[in-house]
């Protein structure tokens, strides 16, 4: 069976997988990082979004083998070692941008990518459009949009 070597949240892992093993399965079942979720089987919901080499990717639509040699960041890897939350996590909390929390990891990872790719700032419309690949059934998005708008300047200030 093939082996994949990758760095997840700064730690290197070498894992035996099947050809068909998905990145999300590798993360959840082999490495035990269950913060990344699976909400659909048609690549629509974004609950599984992680960063692969610094940009967002749907880990349910990627083979584990495709991540060979990659640097992967998951929701578990965002906070500082002392537990200080990433500004996006902090603003999600501040603005009540999560309810059941199931969409949240993917939502936060997508939101960080969105802010990173818009150094000039984001309008409300751009935020809403930028969340096209992430579904939330609980919040109605209102507070998620608010949280991202609040996090953007904090992230750029850093």
């Amino acid at each position, binding site marked *: 069976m*093939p082996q994949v070597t990758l760095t997840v949240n700064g730690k290197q892992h070498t894992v035996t997988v*099947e*050809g*068909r093993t*998905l990145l999300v399965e590798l993360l959840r079942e082999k490495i035990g990082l269950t913060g990344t979720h699976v909400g659909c*089987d*048609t*690549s*629509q919901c*974004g609950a599984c*979004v992680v960063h*692969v080499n610094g*940009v*967002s*990717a*749907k880990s*349910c*639509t*990627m*083979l584990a*083998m*495709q991540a*060979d040699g990659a640097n992967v960041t998951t929701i578990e890897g965002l906070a500082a070692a002392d537990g200080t939350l990433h500004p996006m996590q902090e603003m999600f909390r501040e603005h009540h941008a999560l309810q059941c929390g199931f969409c949240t990891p993917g939502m936060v990872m*997508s939101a960080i*990518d*969105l802010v990173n*790719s818009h150094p000039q700032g984001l309008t409300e419309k751009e935020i809403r459009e*930028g969340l*096209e*690949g*992430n579904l939330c059934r609980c919040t109605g998005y209102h507070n998620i949009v608010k949280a991202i708008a609040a996090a953007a300047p904090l992230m750029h200030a850093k």
Partner: protein
Amino acid sequence: MYDFNYEKPASLAAAVATLTGDADAKALAGGMTYIPVLKMRLAKPSAIVDLSAAGLSGITVTASSVTIGAMTTHDTVAKNAQVRAAIPALAALAGGIGDEAVRHRGTIGGSLANNDPAACYPSAVLALGATIKTNKRSIAADDYFQGMFTTALEDGELIVSVEFPIPQKAAYEKFRNPASRYAIVGVFVAKFANGARVAVTGASQGGVFRHEGMEKALSANFSPDATAGVTTDTDNMNQDIHASAEYRAHLVGVVTKRAVAKA
């Protein structure tokens, strides 16, 4: 998913060799279409040939053309300054495919090889009269698309790059499926010195097609008003829970008008 062998050849030649050596092996580009297909168990390849190390990505822009490597992602095309300057409509089209995470991985080669009847890129390729370059030959856009999910590609033939002539003006407008966000109707209009080309995706049962009526009208007068009164035959239109044939035929007119206005 059924299990398969995973291979990642380091060159185009090696990829072609693997694919020709095993009829059940299948190329994998961004996987944004093919992995969902595998997950639904609609395909059972013996091997997956990951093209990501085969050296197929990159963008070259000259005075008259834009050439995009097959493995170039939608996000790269969308953000590339040279593409944005030369054919802004193409960059905008790429920036409107799926969502950002999909654009980070999905590629032009995969999109064109797949030829989903609701995909965006085929309309740009056809309207711009692009040339599909494979490991074997060059294929003109007009010969390439052969009905939904069907192309001129032979077994084991790989797209290497796509060369787009630079038009005077162009624009892509998409009316999205509210659920999947693919095109219910997508229209790419392009104005060249010798006339206009209009390609429609999403609407037809036969996949992407050139709209002769619109091309005629817009060649005479490249303005939104010129599209008024140009009708689209409902006979070949797709029909599903999201749009009737009549609605699609009507939208072709609306979307074309809006594309021209944007160009």
